[in-house]
């Protein structure tokens, strides 16, 4: 057993920490406040090859592994969970979907610019009536000559307003059930596809989220990703990858909550001594550090399994479930440690607290993760 990262992984992690400290941390409050997508940061992320770490170099990526991508997401999320998430869904789901299922032409045309960070990917599955219940989706794709015609409305699309390449799921044969859903690669600007306005969210505010409307949207047959009817299997595999990213984002949040809590509890004097001397506070911090370590090992292990080309579906769900719930539990504690100051804008823990909640919801709710895990262990 070897718990050591490679020298390259350690250096890359350190470089991302420096990047985040220099370019992301100083604007994190502002982009949260204004719900702004920091295009200038994404330009720099692209220059440093951070937008396609696990994608092979021939397709525009850095040619590294999934664990290294996960380390970068963790460090980035420590400064800003929104920015970390945007990279995570772009790489973990959009890029991975094309890498794993695309034709050579599709990889050259869509994956290459995405992995280089020139174009931003989006994952378009959820509908107003179809969240965890994917099968309740109603968007259809009807073959008409050499193209599919898509109709329907999607919602909660991350990178919806800012995306360039959309992975859109629609029924090609509703009657075929689980084998009737297909995935299409649709570039921004395609007639009949439009993004609604950005949702105002409680947290994760600089990540842009919207409805996506498809009205007689004509998509060439060449843009079908994988085989017709393979959409559900591809989406689930995409989630496996994405969930490790959300786990990493959650770890970044907990690490930041821990850092802030340690700093503040040592500085804050009440009854004549730092509050860190109080057992009530120090035990909260002990639990935070312990669960952070546990979440980190689950997450790195899931990423490691992926890199070893082993099945990591259950481990991804476990990592995501545990890390996201740890993020919620401990950002609540971090605000508690900060008292009134933690409840005010400007305190980092206030933002962490709001950002943490979504990690228990998207890319499969905690309940959906438990379905995946129990389905695996009760088999």
């Amino acid at each position: 057993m070897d718990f050591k990262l490679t020298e390259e992984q350690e250096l890359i992690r350190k470089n991302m920490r420096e990047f985040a400290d220099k370019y992301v941390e100083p604007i994190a409050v502002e982009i949260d406040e204004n719900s702004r997508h920091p295009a200038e940061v994404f330009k720099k992320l692209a220059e440093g090859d951070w937008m396609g770490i696990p994608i092979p170099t021939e397709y525009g990526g850095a040619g590294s592994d999934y664990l290294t991508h996960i380390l970068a997401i963790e460090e980035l999320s420590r400064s800003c969970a929104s920015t970390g998430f945007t990279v995570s869904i772009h790489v973990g789901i959009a890029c991975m979907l094309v890498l794993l299922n695309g034709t050579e032409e599709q990889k050259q045309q869509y994956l290459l610019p995405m992995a280089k960070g020139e174009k931003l990917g989006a994952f378009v599955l959820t509908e107003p009536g179809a969240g965890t219940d994917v099968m309740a989706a109603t968007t259809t794709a009807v073959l008409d000559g050499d193209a599919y015609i898509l109709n329907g409305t999607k919602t909660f699309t991350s990178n919806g307003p800012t995306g360039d390449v959309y992975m859109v799921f629609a029924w090609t044969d509703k009657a075929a059930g689980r084998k009737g859903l297909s995935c299409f690669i649709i570039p921004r600007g395609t007639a009949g596809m439009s993004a609604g306005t950005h949702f105002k969210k409680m947290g994760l505010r600089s990540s842009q989220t919207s409805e996506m409307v498809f009205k007689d949207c004509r998509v060439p047959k060449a843009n079908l990703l994988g085989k017709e009817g393979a959409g559900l299997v591809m989406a689930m595999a995409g989630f496996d990858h994405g969930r490790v990213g959300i786990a990493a984002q959650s770890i970044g949040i907990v690490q930041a909550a821990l850092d802030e809590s340690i700093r503040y509890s040592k500085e804050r004097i009440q009854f004549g001594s730092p509050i860190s001397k109080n057992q009530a506070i120090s035990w909260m911090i002990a639990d935070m550090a312990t669960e952070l370590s546990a979440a980190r090992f689950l997450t790195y292990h899931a990423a490691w399994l992926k890199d070893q080309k082993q099945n990591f579906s259950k481990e991804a769900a476990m990592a995501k479930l545990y890390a996201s719930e740890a993020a919620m539990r401990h950002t609540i504690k971090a605000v508690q440690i900060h008292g009134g100051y933690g409840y005010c804008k400007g305190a980092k823990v206030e933002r962490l607290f709001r950002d943490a909640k979504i990690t228990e919801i998207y890319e499969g709710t905690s309940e959906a993760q438990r379905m995946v895990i129990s389905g695996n262990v009760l088999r």
Partner: protein
Amino acid sequence: MPNIVACFKWVIDEAYIRKGPSGTLDFSAVDYKISDYDRNAIEEAARLKGFHGGSVTVLTAGAPAASKGVKDALSRGADQAFFAGDPTFNQLESSQTAAILGEIIRSRIPYDLIICGEGSSDQYAQQVGPRLAENLGIPCISYVQKLTIGADGRIIAERRVEDGVEVVEAPLPVVVTVLPEINTPRIPGVKDTLMASKKPVVTIKKEELPPVGAARLQTLGMTATRMERNCEKFAAMPEGIARFVEALQKRGVIN
């Protein structure tokens, strides 16, 4: 096209040093980094190569674990590295470091320009650069905040000295020690780090070098500095301000 050598030291990242209860320093969880100003030295070498072509060689002497530092340095625009690694090189003093670097450069690396950081993040003795120049019998320009290579191949350096800026020029080869103002070191991208592992590294064993002699400097102890912090609050009222002035006078801050 100049052959540029940038020297660096792999040091403890001071951000990880923790202070024990009685002022002792806890090094149990430290990470290491390229000494701050040495990052500027490497960056300047890479920047000049960008203008004039040539080659950049990075060079260090240190403990075997500094191999990570060699990769770090190579990810910052260098072409190759020379690494003298030995467990006993962990605590070299400046004269020993300069002797080792001098020997390696003289015997193994063609050089026109050698760049060092003005001082290291840990000791800041400012000795290695000048001693290295002496060892090689070439000039040394210290406190450099701007560096250019003229068309005639002479180097022009802006030195930040106490009362202003001194501009000097010298024929190559020369040793230059740089200040942090000279440039902003890059943050290496993912590919830079991955490519670094594929660049040539010449590893030199202690046995291949002439003996450096015993260290003349001994570290007897290290303790954290103590900073007294006092906080007194005064009301923003005439009587409060009077008490404030009084308190400042009592402490000798004002007369």
